């Protein structure tokens, strides 16, 4: 009987599940080359360090925040890629963490992925997510004296631009 | 020392100049150039798809009061364009189901009064007034110039 060969994406998910069985909540593979791993937000630094050292995802392409007001949660998405390992260069791994809307705090990954510096500053000012341990968390893109609510949340609406 | 650069610089003194003396010489624009819009009032049915697709929301459908009858548009609703907001993407022209909108090479739309930038449907149906007669020509080893377009008989 022939063995069913596992693809690279399934290998990554199996290794992640065997290393952190209790922190990983769900995984998904979309259209090959896109892996999504949802994890528990308190252990982001351990998972990030393991991703960088053992699997080889050595840089972050970006950090995105998504607001789901109906579920009262904020999601933080870390998009990681690899420059140094040619066999996984075309895979993008999306690490998802869920934060409650009233206490959006998560540890910073700047000590592991230095490319996260400016991305975390932007997520902080656009969504109000507090990254603990960031060396220089201040506003990046909005006005210096803006003290209103974080602009990208879905509560801020612009009725003159039409229905949403 | 700087011989290569000086040779290049001196060689260019004897090449032709790449200048077009606008507004006395104007460029001949290609056929699908995205300038202001041309409305064919005998084809428009007033469906409003142009107003829906417009990214800047600068088109609004207004009733037109004149003596003519439009059998395909009984309510006489036609688009009016606010050119202060238009980004000239011409998605309205491509998405119109009856082909009532067209391209023109008019780009000199500046006005002294801001209210004149709101074009009514009748003003949109006037034909184009732009005449362009020059085009760029590449000469081998002599540079690039703007020359009059040869008139075809």
């Amino acid at each position: 009987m022939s063995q069913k060969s596992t693809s690279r994406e399934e290998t990554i998910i199996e290794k992640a599940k065997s290393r952190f069985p209790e922190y990983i909540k769900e995984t998904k593979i979309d259209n090959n080359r896109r892996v999504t791993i949802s994890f528990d937000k308190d252990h982001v630094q351990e998972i990030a360090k393991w991703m960088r050292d053992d699997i080889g995802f050595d840089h972050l392409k970006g950090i995105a925040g998504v607001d789901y007001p109906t579920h009262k949660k904020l999601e933080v998405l870390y998009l990681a890629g690899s420059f140094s390992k040619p066999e996984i260069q075309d895979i993008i791994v999306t690490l998802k963490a869920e934060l409650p809307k009233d206490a959006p705090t998560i540890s910073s990954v700047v000590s592991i992925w230095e490319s996260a510096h400016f991305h975390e500053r932007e997520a902080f000012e656009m969504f109000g997510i507090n990254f603990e341990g960031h060396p220089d968390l201040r506003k990046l893109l909005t006005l210096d004296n803006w003290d209103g609510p974080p602009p990208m949340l879905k509560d801020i609406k612009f009725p003159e631009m039409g229905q949403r | 020392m700087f011989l290569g650069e000086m040779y290049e610089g001196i060689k260019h003194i004897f090449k032709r100049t790449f200048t077009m003396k606008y507004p006395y010489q104007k460029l001949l624009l290609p056929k699908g150039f995205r300038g202001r819009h041309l409305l064919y009032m005998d084809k428009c049915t007033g469906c409003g798809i142009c107003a829906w697709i417009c990214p800047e929301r600068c088109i609004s459908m207004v009733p037109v009061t004149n003596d003519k009858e439009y059998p395909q548009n009984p309510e006489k609703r036609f688009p009016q364009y606010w050119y202060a907001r238009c980004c000239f993407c011409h998605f309205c022209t491509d998405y119109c189901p009856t082909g009532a909108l067209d391209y023109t090479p008019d780009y000199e739309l500046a006005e002294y009064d801001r209210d004149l930038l709101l074009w009514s449907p009748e003003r949109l149906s006037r034909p184009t007034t732009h005449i362009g007669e020059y085009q760029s020509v590449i000469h081998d080893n002599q540079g690039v110039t703007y020359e009059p377009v040869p008139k075809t008989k």
Partner: protein
Amino acid sequence: MTANPPTPTIASNEAKEPSTMDVSVGPQHPGSGHVRLLMRVDGDYIVSIDPDIGYVHRGCEKIAEYRNYVSNIPHLERPCIIDAIHLNWAYVLPVEELQGVIVPPRGQYISTIAAEMNRIMSHLYWLAINAGVFSGHTTIFMWAFGDRDLFIELAEWLTGARLTYSFLPPGGPRRDFPSGFEQKLAKLLDYFEKRLVEYDRMFLSNPLVVARAKGIGVLKKKDAIKLGVTGPVLRGSGVEYDVRKVEPYGAYADLEFQIPTFKEGDSYSRYLVRFEEMKQSISIIRQALNKMPKGPIARKAPLVAPEGEAIGRVESSRGEITVMVIGDNSDKPYRVKIMNGSFRNLIALPYLIRNVHVADMPIIYGSLDYWPVEADR
């Protein structure tokens, strides 16, 4: 909002030395967009630099949630308008993946040719302003802008507009080649190839340019990987990574080209990467013109996108643009996140401009090809 903005300072953790002075470079528009750099200077040496960006921030991603998928195209191609086809394509790739639309082969070839023309145009703009005017070389500014205008006239013939193309809605390009376009493009490429030899003699081999750029702003290979930079900055430091080879899109899987990589990591090797990329673009366009298939150019795409997430990426002239689109079964996207080359390369600016002369700052800034409007969105 409070009445008076607080006085900006450099937020560095070390205490301010008494011999240093804070100089504000800007807010000004160095040929590309509004940016401000706060420099801490000790005599002729720059101790540290703090980029104060956000002067051109418009809330692109927020506005994109209020427009439907087709109306978003003129809006989302404006951040880097001199490279509009790549931004347009990077937004449309995930939308097509969500909707399940496949572009026919002739449409892929037309998009590829338009994208490579746009890469040449963007590199000519970089050569004129960021490499030419910032180092005082105004001759190459005039020459590069003159040749760029010939490419712009061809793009105007193909799409109808000089810079703001809006050429690729979901499903494929809007127009086919007009008759006579391929011959005129081939003639322009022959002319431009000879001009690149003249540019080499006038600019790249110029002892002044070599003296100002060689050995300045060295970014080593492991630092480039750690900082996550992208585009010619990455390839000028020895990492061979190009999205057109890693994850081919469009017609790149059928075409042969090389990725210029240089290992020194200084500003001069970043100049050389962009020069060689222009030569490779000429070869790609010639191969694509020879291999053009026949057939339809586009397919009809639905107006709504189902629920789900999709990520697409392209290699633009400033780096890799990654776009994530989240759909929610309506005709407007729920979230659009754009990660582009200028924002990812921003971290190299305070990293490279440390303990250098004040006169080296424009050279390093120009070699990174930072486009403020793209970084701020």
